[in-house]
């Protein structure tokens, strides 16, 4: 038993320095996210933002650059922009520092840096948002979808910066779908169907994200906006059934009769796979000049690694 007690104390000593209580403010920021890799990315950016807020950019950048610091060991890198779109810190490519990148676009034409800078326009001092774009970290034949978490930060000298970090391993979170669908619903209400439909179908719009998109159906389940089949506008989706025969669209329309928003889960094989995986639709009912529209987005839900369906 003496050996056991000594070994346990030794283990605790080894464990102790590596353990720290997580900051409760940062933890409240990660609460909406389901996946740990998303949470880790948010924590990473939030800590960087805290450092800039407390010590200013000069001291924070020195810390970011320190070879044995956690910022250097992280699998993702930090970037910081000013409100004009000029890069002031880049953890991966220092050559970009000082350059005005406001016109930078991804292969789809999405204005990447402009989207980052837009976060500064929010009234909250610590506003944050996600942006999604195609990117290649190194020369590749096909760019990958990347999701970046952006946080507005006010330095002690009063200057506003945008600090962020991204990952190409980000999975679609439920909150991502909610934000995209709710934003599309607002766009419809504010701009009307003609402008909104045009934007929703544009591959360079914010509504094309992480390999999925926002669609619009009418109250009978006919597709009005379907970015994956732009030439099949008006096709009837009400008869769509999933891999086990569940009438997904009918169920969605039924739920939306009694509620503004609805979630429906169904089974469908991922591209190139035979066995079905779990897929989720989030949709919002929008009343527009006597017409009922259903704005929605669907995505594959990650299955717990131990779970078999």
């Amino acid at each position, binding site marked *: *038993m003496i*050996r*056991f007690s000594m*070994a*346990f104390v030794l*283990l*605790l000593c*080894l*464990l102790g320095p*590596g*353990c*720290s*209580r*997580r900051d*409760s403010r940062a*933890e409240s920021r990660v*609460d909406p996210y*389901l*996946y*740990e*890799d998303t949470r*880790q990315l948010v924590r990473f950016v939030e800590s960087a933002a805290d450092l800039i807020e407390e010590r200013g950019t000069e001291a924070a950048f020195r810390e970011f650059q320190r070879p044995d610091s956690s910022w250097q060991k992280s*699998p993702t890198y930090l970037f910081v922009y000013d409100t004009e779109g000029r890069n002031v810190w880049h953890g991966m490519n220092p050559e970009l520092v000082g350059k005005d990148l406001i016109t930078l676009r991804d292969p789809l034409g999405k204005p990447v840096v402009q989207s980052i800078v837009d976060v500064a326009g929010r009234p909250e001092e610590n506003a944050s948002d996600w942006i999604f774009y195609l990117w290649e970290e190194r020369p590749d034949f096909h760019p990958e979808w990347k999701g970046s978490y952006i946080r507005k930060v006010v330095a002690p000298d009063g200057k506003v910066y945008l600090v962020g970090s991204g990952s190409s*391993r980000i*999975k679609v979170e439920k909150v991502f779908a909610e934000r995209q669908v709710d934003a599309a619903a607002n766009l419809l209400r504010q701009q009307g169907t003609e402008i909104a439909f045009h934007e929703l179908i544009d591959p360079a719009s914010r509504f094309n994200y992480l390999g999925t998109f926002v669609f619009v159906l009418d109250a009978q389940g006919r597709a009005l906006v379907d970015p994956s089949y732009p030439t099949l506008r008006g096709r009837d989706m009400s008869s769509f059934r999933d891999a*086990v*025969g*569940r009438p997904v669209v009918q169920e969605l329309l039924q739920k939306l009769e009694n509620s503004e928003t609805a*979630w*429906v*889960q*169904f*089974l469908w094989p991922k591209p190139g*796979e*035979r*066995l079905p995986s*779990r897929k989720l639709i989030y949709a919002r009912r929008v009343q527009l000049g006597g017409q009922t529209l259903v704005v929605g987005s669907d995505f594959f839900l*990650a*299955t*717990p*690694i*131990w*779970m*078999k*369906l």
Partner: protein
Amino acid sequence: MPRRPPGLIYAVDERPPALTLCLLAIQHIFLMSSTLVLPVVLVSEIGGRFEEVRGIVALSMISCGVGTIVQAMRVRGFGSGFLCPNLVGPNFFGSLMGAAWLGGLPLMRGMTIAAGLFEALFARVIHRVRFLFPPEITGLVVLMVGEALIPLGASKFLGITYPDEPISGVSFAVAAATLFCMVAVNVWGRGKLRLYGVLIGLIGGYVLSLATGLFGAAQLHRVFQAPWVAFPWMAGITRISFRWSLLPAFLIVSATGALKTMGNLTMCEKVNDADWKEPDIDRISGGLLADSVAVTVSGLIGGMASDTSSSNVALSSASGATSRVIGYAAGGLFVALGFFPKLSALLSVMPTPVMGAILVFVTSFMLLSGAQIILSSGLDARKIFIVGIALVFGLSLDILPELYAGIQGWLRSLFDSPLTLATVIAVVLNQVLRSHRATKPADTLPVPSV
């Protein structure tokens, strides 16, 4: 008359003192709670309300408690008389989810009842098919039951829930320290200290989780939110429906559950008898009947299907306490906890690394017990190929599931579980190779006592 194994502290017919009994029962109910997350996931997945989640968790606890009690009984061929607790059955999860997706909770209940009745039928005919399950095949079943715990145990131990997630250093360290604690008590603990290996590890794990922030306000908030007392009920609890198209899948799952219970009860027999040679089919039949009652009750009262718990059987072996009275106490406590949501919430917020450590601890016992049963059957060339080929294809289903992705229709259900696939292959091979002259037994390997 079974010979008492030397390491046993409280044998199946003995009664531990009250305080010891209470602590041992608590140790078991912590483990029985390890799959309470499944009804939560199931109801959430089908868009159920919070009241439904709470209701189904409470009703599942009651059916598991009842299952644990009836399993510990041994009355006129009913029950095995062993400490073989029930928990919410992970092997039922996929099929129950499919039923719930198609027809909501009423269909889930109806199909659970059908699975329970099928197991009762299996229990009645097992005497006639006992020739299908010689010791090397029951050993294989025990081994594969342990194998089925690996994905859950390893992922919880490393603190990973979804693919591609990074391993959390802190979570891993807490899991390692908790596991070390349990193993150390088992390896170096003297006398009755060994009884409480998991409980001591649990306390250590909770303390470390609190210290490192892995267990904190968010988890305790869920406990504080739950009411102290609530009658387990939910709207539409009496509605039951049935679909013939789902029956084949549920029959296979029920057969898998029955095989798992056979494996668990075989291990119970072995743990309680130093001279164990082969399964007591009468006792296993009684155990299967008790298990079928537990599954049917789950469906009737509206809980999720219960199943015998391999990890609890392994725990009883590890702690040296196999008294059936512990089963009565743990079952009774679990039923009672169904009426006290605050206490059941406290169980269900077990930190992930602690849960992972417990699962790795008990899986080690399960795997090696299975291997020991196989090896003690006196391996010859025939048995080596029966078990070996079954293992190759059974494990391939877990390692390369895409190999079998093209199999459709009723046959698909056979390829949903490595346990089912390996058992079916072994049973078939055993019959195919039966007519051949038995070969000379290979050298028996020295096997450490588990």
